[in-house]
């Protein structure tokens, strides 16, 4: 699949959804623009640009164009997915398990398991960073951080 076409299609669908939503919100009149007026204009503009990119992809030199698979060729894309999943899990349990447990688990897993750093670094660096962050936010700036079910 041609990357330019896939990209432009994605934005076109998003723009179409925005246009549909704008009509739902109400465009108002030129003298009294409604809530959907600017979103309609912006959505139409994005759609127009997406169409231009789509058409351009047929007119430009095929040799200079990339396929979607090529964008992930020769890189360890699985690592990006793992990090994304780790962040998502961190967010899901952050308020339940609390700042200390979640933060340490996230840093330790990335450093030890994903990056293969030694035990000393994987334990000490997160511990010091988490301690300093806690001191800065909780003690100096008086901003609360979630304690979690264990109360710390």
């Amino acid at each position: 699949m041609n990357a330019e076409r896939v990209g432009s299609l994605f934005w076109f669908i998003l723009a179409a959804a925005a246009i549909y939503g704008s009509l739902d919100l109400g465009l108002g009149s030129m003298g009294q623009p409604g809530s959907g007026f600017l979103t309609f204009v912006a959505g139409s503009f994005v759609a127009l640009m997406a169409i231009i990119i789509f058409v351009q992809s047929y007119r430009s030199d095929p040799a200079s164009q990339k396929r979607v698979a090529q964008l992930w060729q020769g890189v360890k894309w699985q690592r990006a997915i793992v990090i994304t999943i780790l962040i998502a899990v961190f967010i899901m349990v952050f308020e339940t398990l609390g700042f200390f447990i979640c933060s340490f688990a996230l840093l330790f897993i990335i450093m030890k398991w994903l990056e293969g750093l030694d035990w000393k670094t994987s334990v000490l660096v997160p511990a010091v960073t988490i301690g300093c962050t806690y001191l800065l936010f909780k003690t100096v700036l008086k901003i609360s951080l979630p304690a979690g079910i264990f109360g710390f």
Partner: protein
Amino acid sequence: MDLFDNILTGLSVAFQWHNLLFCFVGCFIGTLIGVLPGLGPVGAMSILLPITFGISPVTAIIMLSGIYYGAQYGGSATSILVGIPGEAASVVTTLDGHQMALQGRAGPALGISAFASFIAGTIGVLGLMLLAPPLASLALRFGPPEYFALMIMGLIILTYLAQKSMVKSLMMAGVGVLVGVVGLDTMTGMPRFTFGIPDLFDGVGIAPLAMGLFGVSEILLNVEQTIKQGVVVDRVKNLLPNLADWKASYKPILRGSFTGFLLGILPGGGAVLASFISYGTEKRLSKTPERFGHGAIEGVAAPEAANNSAAQAAFIPLLTLGVPANAVMGILLGALMIHGITPGPMMIEKNPELFWGTVTSMYLGNIMLLVLNLPLIGLWVKLLRVQYAVLFPLILFIALIGAYVINSSEMDLYLMLLFGVIGYLMRKFEYEPAPLVLAFVLSPILEDSLRQSLIISGGSMSIFVTRPISAGFLFLAALLLISAVLPSVRKKRSKLVAQADENN
């Protein structure tokens, strides 16, 4: 009050111990961010936004500004010593700076870069002091149509200067407007694109958006590659440039400072463009252009001067018109709003301490950076040797906690992750995030001014072309758009893009 009184007011604010301290902290963090590849000033400032909650607005702005112009200083150290730009505005410095380092002249390269940054920063601050008040008075004549036209022009300039496709950048600006209007409509109270989620009624925050698009996406891209550790030149001696170095550099520094200042004022312009243009100018003016790329000191002095001067000048549109010139200024605008201050023509009158305190602190900040950079070069060299495997989890952790504490909201974290993934895909598919962020920041002002203009004119779009100032802005924007599609200009742009890619 005349200029002298204003400067005294500013100095009295800037010299308060806590402002001095936060100015130093900002400059230090900025240099650190500049030195470390992978986290730019936009990401760093948004991450540190929550820290400013507990301090006064003037102190907050002094610190955040310090991060921005400090990053311009710091970026050059990485460019020179490792050959990898610490941040975008230092890309050009890499060309000759690293060559100088490999030839055993890392000291003079770092020295001239620090002095050029200081001189240009000083010129930038002076220009800011002299130009901002009259510009603010002029801006008082601006009505909604002028603001609308100015913002359209700013967005067009930004997309015109886009490194890759202008059509894609224009589209990203459109997407930025769509994201910017999420939340309750301020005029009608109607929720827009909130999908019934109450957390979205206040809209998408600048911090999760910027941290996601710039910070998280950068990490996701970096982790899938094996980061090449460049050749770190750690033997740095003779930091003070000799007489011959000064002789070769003083004119490029002055030219770079003025070029940078002029380009920095333009909404959409900025430090990156200024550094590229000043490098090109010096190469063209040189009697020995073949030395460029092989360790010419002018090739370090001019772009370093230009990016610092541009960084200072970028404050002008924000502080006088309330219009951020780039994504960094967008974050500053967000910070000011959080503190209940709306930047614009009236700000200098209403909050002289904030304006003059910030401006004079920039001068003090420049002195601090000069003092900080040269003796601490050993520390930066050590820092450059820290593995990315240690660094990126810490950056990610700070970003996550930073995004959370702004509103103690889980939703902000989800938004940051969402924009992180979107930003990652955007970069893969070669869409630039900067126009999106700038349009996002501008969208509330853009919408208000568009609506007000149409209400004033009774629905006639002619209001934008019958008023001279707005007509002028729109004419310039149209000129840029037309010139961008002309075959000769397109060819030149593609050539420049190819050159920039090679340099990267």
